[in-house]
């Protein structure tokens, strides 16, 4: 039973990270119907930013918690700037073009950013400091779940709550939902659609950066390629939950995390991806719109 809980918590942690990254995919898709393949790279850039900032700050003698906070903040700001710029450079000029053009542009952006980091940094794995301190009050359950995992799960939950509030109750959130449902009509109501799209990219990038910092500090090393793998998994999570749906991204992330964790624990770690993608195929066959996705037929 203890083994079960161990797997449960490690799946929860993994799923939280997938959910954080999947949010960016799903929100961008919801608004401009584009799979932003460069999104995984935003997450990777977030991790690199945090590594550099954390290195500088620890040389300057800052304490553990303030390094974590400042490095995460820097990653969020820097990644958001990247997300914003990518949209303006690679997607906005193609907004009226066929959807395939923007998709190809996204793949190109992804390859470009990977190679940019490869050249500017290194192709080697870099050690990432464990920025998340061990909490003493968690000692009784330390054999089941580490402090880092608790921090990841709690942070994800907080981000989700803030995001849901933003989408449901703020003026910007309402504008985002209206834009997602009918862009021209949102314009006719006075919504500055360009600004809404920019905000969406910024929010998605910020959550991906948070995910990048947390997972890098949990796993302990990064390289230029981590964005690709995490991106594919998070994309799977977004499709699983129903692309375009925010709660769907969270649920998809968690389901994927648990599937992988239990498959690794009870079968073999070799079969981790087999189970994850079999699940995806099954969902696509029996419920193509995803677990929480809306079917496309609607009375308008």
């Amino acid at each position: 039973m203890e083994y079960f809980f161990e797997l449960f918590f490690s799946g929860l942690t993994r799923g939280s990270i997938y959910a954080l990254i999947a949010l960016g995919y799903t929100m961008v898709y919801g608004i401009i119907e584009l799979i932003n393949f460069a999104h995984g790279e935003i997450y990777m850039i977030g991790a690199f930013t945090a590594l550099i900032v954390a290195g500088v700050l620890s040389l300057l003698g800052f304490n553990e918690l303030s390094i974590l906070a400042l490095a995460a903040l820097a990653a969020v700001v820097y990644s958001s700037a990247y997300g914003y710029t990518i949209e303006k450079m690679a997607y906005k000029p193609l907004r009226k073009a066929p959807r395939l053009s923007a998709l190809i542009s996204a793949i190109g952006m992804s390859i470009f950013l990977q190679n940019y980091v490869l050249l500017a940094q290194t192709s080697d794995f870099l050690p990432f400091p464990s920025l998340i301190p061990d909490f003493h009050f968690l000692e009784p359950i330390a054999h089941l779940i580490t402090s880092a995992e608790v921090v990841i799960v709690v942070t994800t939950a907080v981000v989700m709550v803030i995001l849901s509030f933003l989408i449901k109750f703020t003026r910007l959130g309402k504008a985002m939902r209206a834009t997602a449902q009918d862009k021209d009509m949102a314009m006719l109501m006075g919504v500055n659609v360009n600004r809404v799209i920019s905000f969406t990219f910024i929010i998605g990038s910020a959550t991906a950066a948070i995910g990048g910092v947390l997972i890098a500090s949990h796993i302990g090393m990064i390289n230029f390629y981590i964005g690709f793998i995490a991106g594919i998994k998070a994309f799977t999570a977004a499709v699983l939950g129903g692309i375009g749906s925010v709660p769907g991204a969270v649920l998809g992330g968690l389901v994927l995390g648990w599937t992988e964790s239990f498959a690794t624990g009870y079968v073999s770690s070799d079969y981790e991806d087999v189970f994850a993608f079999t699940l995806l195929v099954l969902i696509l066959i029996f419920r193509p719109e995803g677990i929480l996705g809306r079917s496309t037929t609607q009375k308008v």
Partner: protein
Amino acid sequence: MLELKDIRSYYGNIQAIKGVSLTISEGEIITLIGGNGAGKTTTLMSISGIVPPRSGEILFMGEPIHEKSPDEIVSMGICQVPEGRRIFPFLTVMENLDMGAFLRKDKDGIKKDLEYIYDLFPILAERRHQAGGTLSGGEQQMLAISRALMARPRLLLMDEPSLGLAPLVVRRIFEIIEQINRENNTTIFLVEQNANLALKVANRGYVMENGLITMADDAGKLLANEEVKRAYLGL
């Protein structure tokens, strides 16, 4: 109030409007009638800035607006009820109405207008927490008009509000159009295929064919015009 001077608009490479000029004065109801594909909807979309004209000028209160973005045009007081109603299907009725007041900051005014609308269409008050997409066609049209009114427009553009609605509902919608014009002194530019009804509520009318204005006259005179009767009134 609104003046179009020889505007030409394109969808891609297809020219939809080939030089349209018209004027609308404050407080009027003006109608634009014409068949399918005449360029009526494009004319409205050009005014709203969604399909900006490639040449020509659009003046609103003497100010050129043809190079402004759609949200700037809305903020100047031009709001549109587009063809097919275009309700946000997953927003509630109340959220749809809030979207109409998107650029407004006067909370008290918004609240008062909301009461005015619930008075005008009690059914919307009843369904305020329901998703817009679940309303019937007639209710959606009422919501579309109400949503535009929430912007407190000085000029209201309406694109085929009678489309696909039962005759009784159509009559009710046209009564409301007259009422809005009378009570709030809102200028109305009404695009319609139902020429008979449109010309009955309008002060003046324009007839559009193949991207050009072919006739312009008082609504009463157009109603009596033999050519209009034959082509648009089915008489």
